[in-house]
């Protein structure tokens, strides 16, 4: 299942890039940079509680009213001392967001998310289509902040289970600060996901929610 979303990501990226004529590539902005990621992961109950840190990469492509974020991160989650979990795992996440400016501060977003857990059985791998909106505001010269919110549709889990149409949501908060006359941007992103997953082993539906808070701080170079 996760392989399917990975294929979509590669496909979407390829289509987006090849759809642009070469003469227009010069007019668009490409912002790429590494990030430090740190997160909090919970599954099923408060006993399965992990915290961890890792690294990531974020690329943003801006062209006229369109923009796209490509975010990859890998966080090594370790069980907290208060929980019952014993094994750590790596969460590799790919997130793609296509954004179209609508009006004022509002843009519409469409994308997908794919998170893979390694070892596979220590946590749920998950993939979903994302749809939502972003409100962006220029705080001052070179300082922008954005608030995102949306739904996660069609979520698929490696361990099975289902989520209702409105049962998976995400929130996000981001800030970028221009430095070195706009050639470099300091970036900070926060993302929260909540999957109200339910499983049924024959004895009836049981709640098995998944929740992740992920913060990323880094910098990016503007081309």
């Amino acid at each position, binding site marked *: 299942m996760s392989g399917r979303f990975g294929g979509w990501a590669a496909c979407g990226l390829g289509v987006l890039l090849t759809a642009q004529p070469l003469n227009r590539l010069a007019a668009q902005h490409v912002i790429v940079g590494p990030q430090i990621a*740190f*997160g*909090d992961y*919970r*599954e*099923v*109950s*408060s006993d399965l*509680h992990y*915290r961890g840190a890792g690294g990531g990469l974020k690329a943003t492509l801006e062209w006229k009213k369109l923009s796209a974020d490509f975010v990859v991160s890998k966080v090594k989650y370790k069980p907290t001392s208060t929980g019952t979990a014993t094994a750590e795992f790596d969460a590799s996440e790919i997130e793609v967001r296509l954004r179209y400016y609508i009006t004022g501060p509002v843009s519409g977003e469409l994308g997908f998310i794919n998170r893979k857990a390694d070892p596979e059985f220590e946590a749920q791998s998950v993939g979903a289509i994302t749809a939502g909106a972003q*409100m962006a*505001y220029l*705080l*001052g*010269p070179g*300082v922008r*902040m954005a*608030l995102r*919110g949306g739904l996660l549709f069609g979520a698929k889990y490696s361990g099975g289970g289902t989520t209702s149409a409105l049962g998976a*949501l995400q*929130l*996000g*908060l*981001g*800030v970028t*600060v221009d430095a070195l006359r706009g050639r470099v941007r300091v970036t*900070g*992103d*926060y993302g*929260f996901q*909540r999957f109200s997953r339910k499983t049924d082993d024959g004895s009836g539906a049981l*709640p098995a*929610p998944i*929740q992740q*808070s*992920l*913060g990323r*701080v880094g910098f990016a170079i503007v081309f």
Partner: protein
Amino acid sequence: MHRSTPSIPWLVALALALPLVAQAQTIQNATLRRAQQAFDNLDYRQVLTVAHASLRERLTGFERARAYELLGFTYAGMDSILKAVDAFKQVVLIEPERDLDPNRTSPKALSAFQVALTQILVVRQLRVDSVNFIGGQGAVGIRYTVTQPSRVVTRVTGGSGTSGSMRIDSTVANGQVNLRWPARLPSGDPVPAGNYNVVVEATVGQNSFSTSQPIRITHGVVDTVAHLTSLPGYTYLPETEVPPKSWRPMGLALVYSGIALAGTSALSRGELGSASMREGGLIGGGIVVAGFIMTLKKPAPQPARGNILYNSLLREQIARRNTEIAQENTRRRQQVALSVVPLPRVGGGR
């Protein structure tokens, strides 16, 4: 028949006036000088005898006119008006431009002179105004006086573009006539530069008289209008303005961060326990700090829509005016500035 004696004051006035009139040219003929002397001595019989004698001698045009003038004044002083009129007619025929000074001439002599003018056909006081104008937008003023009702034809001769002669007016007139000549050829083009003669011919029955005034026409370039870089009284306004400091960045940073954290808290209730605020708190705190700094910083200049619109209108207005000026200059470059100057006359009319 009673013959009135000339009054002494008028004779004195005449005697005082005549030397002044004769100052312009000197009299060479001795007989005429004797006549002048006799007139100065108020010896009218002697004046008549000697003046008539001088007319039988060889005299210049001026001297001949002077001799008849002495006879005219003398006959007027002796109340022989008809003879005075005849004498003055001869004066005018010889020198049509001759005039008497009303302040220094007796009324009898003046009236005799005026009667003489009405009895002969002459064109006098032909004047052409000195004028500058753009070809097709002005005219040359021409004035003359014709002494009898007659057919008067005004022509311009000479130059290179008039084919010898160009009629500019034909009318039946008496007294002063004012004309306006646009200085254009029949084709509408300006008269070429050069020296011309304005000829006025008056005809009544078998009598005719003509006089002329030489003029010089020169061509010049019409000045063009300079393009505008600004409109008087209107200046460009700055297209950006620095807004006043406000707490809006800080407020928005708090609102956005608050929504994100409150949303996280609201969504994470349930089996998984309270949410972790570490990640959101760190990013949200960074945004609040950035908002606070932006609140303290001088705001970035913002586009002033009103001023931009005003400047745009001003630029459009100047561009429109410059387009009109360019069209006007194109027209002006095809125009000719005419300068008409009257030249000194060589001779009188005939």
